[in-house]
């Protein structure tokens, strides 16, 4: 093992640790195996998730025909987009206010509060939110989407915050100090120096928040008002009977869209560099 480090190829080998690439590849295979299955079964003629009965586009067609499924999908995406955007902004600000600074009174309390949604089982937050929001809904008569967006934003904050904080903690101060020495305004310094350096963390945080929001069932179930079913709550309602293969079709379609988006981003990035 140690003989390779003195070899002339040292510069390349330092990146490689034995077995790591193998585990990483296995990890990707594992991640995609169930996904392949669900995409495969979305083309199943039969209504079963367990028995293959032939190739067909039947479930795509019926999902497209089903207004309830379409509304739920759209609503899920709208909420997830908003919640991930808001929570990432809030989390970035909070991360800047809690890291790389002299310890101040209340810092631990703030840290605990930001992470609090992580520490409580969803059902508890859900019941508590039901009570609080129901009071507000009755008092104001407003039953719109904002309640869901606020609830989602709140529990997405810690998911966005932790990667951003982790990134920020390791970040070198020297560039920012240099910028400040060159009389850059704090805002300019933030935009031109801190933000670009922080971007991988922000991106990771935003993606986590989006995914977490898209998957939430319990809190949504308790906060939603009439006509506010998201894809997960729509499915939760079916769990005692049958989950229709329409769900597989929707999932596969969403997957296709996201793959398309990723490929586009990838291509654009490539052109730039």
């Amino acid at each position, binding site marked *: 093992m140690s003989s390779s480090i003195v070899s002339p190829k040292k510069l390349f080998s330092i990146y490689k640790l034995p077995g790591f690439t193998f585990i990483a590849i296995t990890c990707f295979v594992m991640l995609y195996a169930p996904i392949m299955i669900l995409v495969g079964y979305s083309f199943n003629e039969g209504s*079963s*998730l*367990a*028995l293959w009965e032939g190739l067909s586009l039947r479930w795509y067609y019926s999902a497209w025909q*089903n*207004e*309830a499924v379409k*509304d739920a999908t*759209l*609503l899920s*995406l*709208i909420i997830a*987009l*908003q919640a991930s*955007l808001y929570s990432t902004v809030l989390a970035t600000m909070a991360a800047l206010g809690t890291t790389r600074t002299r310890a101040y009174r209340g810092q631990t309390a703030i840290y605990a509060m930001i992470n609090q949604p992580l520490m409580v089982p969803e059902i508890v937050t859900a*019941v508590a939110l*039901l*009570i609080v*929001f*129901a*009071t*507000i*809904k*009755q008092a104001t008569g407003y*039953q719109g*989407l904002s309640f869901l967006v606020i609830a989602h934003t709140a529990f997405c904050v810690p998911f966005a915050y932790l990667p951003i904080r982790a990134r920020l903690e390791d970040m070198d101060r020297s560039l920012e100090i240099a910028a400040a020495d060159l009389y850059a305004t704090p805002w300019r310094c933030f935009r031109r120096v801190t933000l670009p350096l922080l971007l991988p963390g922000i991106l990771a945080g935003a993606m986590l928040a989006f995914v977490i929001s898209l998957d939430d069932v319990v809190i949504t*179930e*308790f906060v*939603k*008002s*009439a*006509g*506010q*079913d998201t894809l997960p*709550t*729509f*499915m*939760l*309602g*079916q*769990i*005692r*009977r*049958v*989950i*229709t293969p329409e769900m597989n079709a929707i999932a596969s379609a969403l997957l296709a869209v996201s793959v398309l988006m990723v490929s586009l981003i990838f291509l654009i990035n490539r052109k730039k560099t």
Partner: protein
Amino acid sequence: MTPIIRKSIVGLAMVAISGSASAAGELNLYNWGNYTNPELITKFEKAHDVKVTVTDYDSNDAALAKVKAGGHGFDMVVPSANYMKIWIDEGLLLETRPDQMSNFKNVAKDFNDPVWDPGRRYSVPWQWGTVGMIVDTSVYKGDINTSALFLDPPDELKGKINVPPEMNDVISAAIMYLGGDPCTTDKDLLRKVRDKLVEAKKHWLSMDYGMIEKFAGRDVAASLYWNGAGFRAREKNADVRFGYPQEGFALWMDSVAVLKDAKNADNAKLFQNFVMMPENAALISAFARYANGIEGSDKYMPEDMKNAPEIIIDPKLSGAGKFLLACSPRATEMYTAIWTELQK
């Protein structure tokens, strides 16, 4: 980031527009998921020029908690028989007097004066069914009309049994198997129930939903479960049969009621009357595959349901069926303790 904001605003606007279609009235139905036939809704919308929105729930308790909290925006709800008394006692339902509606004459005799809603002053039948044993007869050839299949399992079935994660259904079945009445607080009997369940659990494979798939894939050979699922499982695995435990099995019925704080109470009453029409009730059954309690609806039922042994109870065994009602708080407390002990 701005395009994202713009997109979500556009999306929001779209939802807002689609939510306020041009119909004269509105109706918000709060029902079990995958339980409402879209055809039924479209038909009602056309007949009365009302825009109907269906929102799903997954358990009686979730629906109850939500409506009790208020500010929900629903007009109608479909509680099970064993929760109806709670809804009525808590003052959540509007007394719409379905018994005086024009289509009430269609309600079957068995259901026009039920214990859970005497005189049908609040609710209208939606669907009803049984909790029995789904059995794969290629694995087990013996008598399937007994709860012994999951409480004193024969060797062929050991390790292939499922029990649904439903406290009331499971404990009631065990109580009836041991000769008691559902909702009993008899300590000696409940001690036996606990011991029986704890002993039997060693032979269970799972406590799960989704049995239609599991029987189709032959992962499970016997399960305490609902009859409509038994019907669907048989469509996918011809060896599957549905048994009615002779020691006693649970009957259930879900009924449509109007909420006291409904904004569209008049449309809701129209809907109650509407589902008591035989052809409409048949639409409900055709979708979710349970019986509906409306006389004359069988004419309009799908062919395969007319004589299905899962839907029509064997007359020799029908006497063993009992409707589950709301248990006393003391009974619920004891059952929760047994249930926790069973799953610890």
